[in-house]
């Protein structure tokens, strides 16, 4: 009520003020008359939109599917096979200091072009758990002088009164199974350089930050770290610290930079150290080639084909309905106003 307060103070003569009111300025915006395009959903537009989508989607779907199918993937689930059959308490076995070496062999069923990516896959492992995902200190990882900033890392922040580097549950639970590959008796080298993101190596993990006081607390977690190598070169850790959004995830272990031929048998010697037995998680070893879409994943291809197909079906259905039951748009006969005005 601007008027009443002005009048209350009586500072201005309201009548005069009113008379002098300027006509509001004219513009297309103020008159809400900006030129506008007003599309409507005509059958032609809608049917062609659906047709267009299906025409675009089906080929993409086919391409995606082909790409995914071309990827050769060997998946080997080993967490139960690598437990000696006489062991009943698997958790106790995995936590014991016994030799947990395990040998498996993989058959290459199709030619695999290098580079071949070696992943380990964990199922039912919640890297996205709130307690877990927050338990890290990016400052500490990046900067040597921030060694003490471990407040976010609880409960793995300090051990024996000193800060842990790298602190937190994520680092603490670092995956520690190792694999070595042989084709026949010949060692297949696995390149473990460059498996992490370049940006992480350069900006997130300090070149002068060395592990300290790691895995020294009462309960031992996963892998230990070589205290003479800076964090920026601890690529397994860097990969592990990129937490996964899903409880099933693969993490890059290394790259095999030679082609594998159809019929080759790959012998893998693995150290089965990581405890997934207490929560019945699965461990898998994955060898996979890659395509322009990434690894083997049929989802996108199938989804594109489905959506494209459905759109085509809808376009067809609308066309049929359009011809069977034509309906004039904007027919005034639909405009009967004989509603009951009081009836609401």
């Amino acid at each position, binding site marked *: *009520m601007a008027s009443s*307060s*002005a*009048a*209350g*103070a009586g*500072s201005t*003569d*309201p*009548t005069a003020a*009113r008379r002098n*009111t300027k*006509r*509001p300025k004219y513009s297309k915006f103020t*008159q809400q008359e900006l*030129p*506008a*395009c*007003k599309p*409507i*959903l005509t059958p032609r537009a809608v049917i062609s939109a*659906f047709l267009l*989508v299906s025409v675009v989607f089906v080929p993409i779907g086919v391409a995606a599917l082909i790409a995914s199918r071309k990827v050769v993937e060997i998946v080997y689930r080993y967490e139960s096979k690598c437990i000696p059959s006489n062991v009943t308490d698997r958790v106790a076995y995995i936590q014991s200091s016994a030799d947990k070496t395990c040998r498996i062999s993989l058959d290459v069923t199709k030619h695999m072009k290098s580079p071949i990516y070696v*992943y380990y*896959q964990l199922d039912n*492992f*919640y890297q*996205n*758990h*709130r*307690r877990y*995902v927050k338990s890290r200190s990016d400052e500490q990882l990046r900067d040597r002088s921030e060694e003490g900033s471990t407040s976010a890392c609880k*409960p*793995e922040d300090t051990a024996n009164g000193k800060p842990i580097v790298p602190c937190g*549950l994520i680092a603490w*639970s670092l995956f520690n199974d190792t694999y070595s590959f042989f084709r026949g008796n010949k060692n297949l080298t696995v390149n473990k350089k460059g498996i992490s*993101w370049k*940006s992480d190596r350069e900006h997130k993990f300090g070149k002068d930050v060395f592990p300290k006081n790691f895995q020294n607390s009462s309960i031992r977690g996963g892998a230990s770290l070589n205290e003479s190598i800076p964090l920026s070169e601890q690529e397994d850790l860097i990969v592990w610290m990129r*937490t996964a*959004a*899903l409880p*099933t995830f*693969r993490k890059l272990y290394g790259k095999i930079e030679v082609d594998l031929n159809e019929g080759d048998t790959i012998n893998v010697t693995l150290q089965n150290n990581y*405890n997934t037995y*207490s929560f019945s998680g699965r461990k898998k070893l994955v060898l996979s080639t890659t395509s322009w*879409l990434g690894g083997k*994943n049929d*989802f996108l291809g199938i989804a594109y084909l489905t*959506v494209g197909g459905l*759109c085509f079906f*809808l376009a067809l259905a609308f066309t049929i*309905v359009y011809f069977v039951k034509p*309906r004039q*748009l*904007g027919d*005034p006969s*639909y405009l009967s106003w004989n509603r009951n*005005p*009081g009836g*609401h």
Partner: protein
Amino acid sequence: MKRYVYIDDDESSHDIYCDNRISNRKYTVLNFLPKNLWEQFSRFMNQYFLLIACLQLWPLITPVNPASTWGPLIFIFAVSASKEAWDDYNRYLSDKKANEKEVWVVKKSVKKLIQAQDIHVGNIVWLRENDEVPSDLVLIGTSDPQGVCYVETAALDGETDLKTRVIPSACMGIDVELLHKIKGVIECPSPDKDIRRFDANMRLFPPFIDNDICPLTIKNTILQSCYLRNTEWACGVAVYTGNETKMGMSRGIPEPKLTAMDAMIDKLTGAIFIFQIVVVLVLGVAGNVWKDTEAKQQWYVLYPHEGPWYELLVIPLRFELLCSIMIPISIKVSLDLVKSLYAKFIDWDHQMIDLETSIPSNATNTAISEDLGQVEYILTDKTGTLTENKMIFRRCCISGNFYGNENGDALKDVELLNAVSSGSSDVIRFLTVMAICNTVIPTPSKTGDILYKAQSQDEDALVHAAARLHMVYFNKSGNILGIKFNSSILQYEVLETLEFTSERKRMSVVVKDCQNGKILLLSKGADEAILPYARTGQQTRHFIEAVEQYAHLGLRTLCLAWRELKRDEYREWSLMFKEASSTLVDREWRVADVCQRVEHDLDILGVTAIEDRLQDGVPETIETLRKAGINFWMLTGDKQNTAIQIALSCNFISPEPKGQLLSIDGKTQDDVCRSLERVLRTMRITTSEPKDVAFVVDGWALEIALNHYRKAFTELAVLARTAICCRVTPSQKAQLVQILKSCDYRTLAIGDGGNDVRMIQQADIGVGISGREGLQAARAADYSIGKFRFLKRLILVHGRYSYNRTAFLSQYSFYKSLLICFIQIFFSFISGVSGTSLFNSVSLMAYNVFYTSVPVLVSVLDKDLSEKTVMQHPQILFYCQAGRLLNPSTFAGWFGRSLFHAIVVFVISIHAYAYDKSEMEEVSMVALSGCIWLQAFVVTMETNSFTILQHMAIWGNLAAFYAINWIFSALPSSGMYTIMFRLCRQPSYWIAIFLMVAAGMGPILGIKYFRYTYRPSKINTLQQAERLGGPILSLGTIEPQQRSIEKDVSTLSITQPKNRNPVYEPLLSDSPNATRRSFGAGTPFDFFQSQSRLTHSTSYTRNCKDN
């Protein structure tokens, strides 16, 4: 409670009464923050947000950075607080200006210049011409020898004409020098806000001779914020100061109005809140169970075995925070923003500028535009609202002779002119009453013409007409009136003025004819206030006929009468009158009682008929709005027949046989009850027929009905689409609004005068016409417009668009919040129900505040139908009235849509980015991009008309999303470093996004298309017709040519009397055997007045038709 004001003795009053410091401020510097915060936190939504923000300070439970809630919260609070502070600062400045204004004041008999704020009760304040009055004063002296001064009261009541104020008789003749030394006491009531009453007494102390008590009225005061005009100086005693003045007391902050839409949004918010609580409880329990079973085995999570007791609460509270965005914090800001834009559109609208005065329309209340689109009842005043309030004297009947019936203008009637020039005594008396029975002040202008300052338009018309008939009222000096008749000058001395009140419905003056010393009582007033007091033996039949005939033509009638008073009679009566006018208690009633004692045995002179023309475009406006399903009630202080006639001529009611008018009348409770029941029965029967049934009720019957038969009357109010209430008082108008509001109808009250203010404030929407009766109504109103016909545009264009836009905006706000919230909920199921947030803080905050609120803001430019189409098919307003665009079921649609979109986004994100790609930040950005893309397409889909601004906002926003995220991705310190660059290089990202868009929008497009084509709503059909240019545009030319209607109206008023049977039945509503009366041939509707008939309802309808 009384106060005693001792003149020029401010020692005694210093402590008791406040000084003259005006304060309109709500806050002080110290209490601003607490008070403003307290006010803001009295709203549920704000409390909710505060609670969430506080919970977020607990790092154990907060999923994201607290800044994501605190930032927007502080922003919102800062915006509203600074708006308040700015308003208050402006008030402070204007207060300061008024407070520091310098005025001349007599203190201790010394005249000095002080600041206005230092005036105390009892000080004598001196004012010069054109000064503003600083406090409420009782006049004690003016420059005018007669003790008169003129004030302009526009700031107080909006009336722009000058009013006269006189000094009390006790102060008459005191010398200017002595005014400094005057002493006395004024006994006056405690401060109140009635600007029309001041019942006080004054007694001067010796040596000022007149030691008697002298009564004071409002005529002896000049009130704060008036201006002194046409008077060299005036002085007065301050009686009320500061915030205790009449002006100060009547200030008040009107209660904020809440629109139906706001109420619905609040309801939906409540529902969402309950949904949220349920989700939180379910997830909280699930989370605790998961924690106790699964998480204990997940060694890497390292849950302690024993936790403190509050551990149980942690997970539910986490989910509460995670879900807190379900209630979007941005909705309040967005709504406030768009609402003020709606108001601006009204202010800016060039088609709603009154071309005569070039006053644009104005939306004072910026918060209720949506309600305009949901109006169901319009309660309108008649005079000045439907009519122009330009009174023109048209006809008269002097002692049985009708003048002006032939050509419609008595001033050009040769017979009357002849009668005037021949000096017929009846005619001359008639003209004399016309000229001087009023409170008009003639002032000579420079050109020699005479300007009249009249308080009422009727008086103005009468005086002008008298002048045209050679009876020129040219001078008023003190109590002496000068009249020029032909060439002779006649003088009259006004002895008393018996003022007009709405209860008495007449006014009189007692004058002394200076030529022969005779004392005359001249009266004018409504027929029922004059005719019953005719002297015995006078035939009033002619006058009754005349009144009735004029009323049929929609003319306003006044009866003029006079009587010669004997000197003794006058003397005796004037003593009583003086006594009555000096009483403090019930003065109005006492005065009326005394007036009654002299206003009898009147010699009726004749009847005047004054035309008040309909405003341009009123019939079309009413017709259009009624087609839009809005019911009209006319509430007028005018008489029944005039009201009905106006109602007919402006399409308010339909003539027979289409329409039917039922009357509720009666003088006693029983009569009213019977009549009410009868009307109700008819209404119930006829609701099914396509017939316009209206009822008419007068103030008396209405009072009884409201007091004793409220329930029945309420039922009637619901059934009747149209009603005419005549002779109603301002408070009855407000009560009627109250009744309709109590039945949950949206009401709009429109009026122009001070008597409409209460109704305007009471109604959901008050519209004021800034017309001739001043600005009082326009001030109190939420919207002020120049002409009644703008109402059509106000409702159909502005109201409707506002409703549509807000409906979309609010539901969309919930949609987008729910969308992101559902994704978080889904994610919690794959993250061990632990309350992890998929999205990071920056994204969450920017999503709500920026990415999704900008595109939707430009929906204020959206128009589903063009203005022209809406005007042609006003019926389309039904969708707004019935709330078809925002209700639980449309909301359920949006809810479902957000659930569907959340599923699409979530499923595609986690499957396309599975296994080796399942990196948290990447998945999060894929999902967020999906949401942004989907919302851009949703806005596109729901937009009906794209202007360049909309394209810019929708697609620009999408581009801005990428730009902003690239910037964040370029900062090494941010959590999202390089993420967005990585994603944008991956073909799978784009493929996933397009998949989300196609899968999310495809079904919606399909459903929308199907409904649009095969189950079209009326809006859709009109859209199609409008845009395809189909036959509909030629079909629906509902709007008739303005000219032709006007012609119809004028022919009606000219031709009807000729066709009509010249003999009229007497129209006395209390005659017991008066049955149904027809208005004669060509009179268009049924009119029931009987109580005796129709006791059995079965014969009722038949009877009507037979007759």
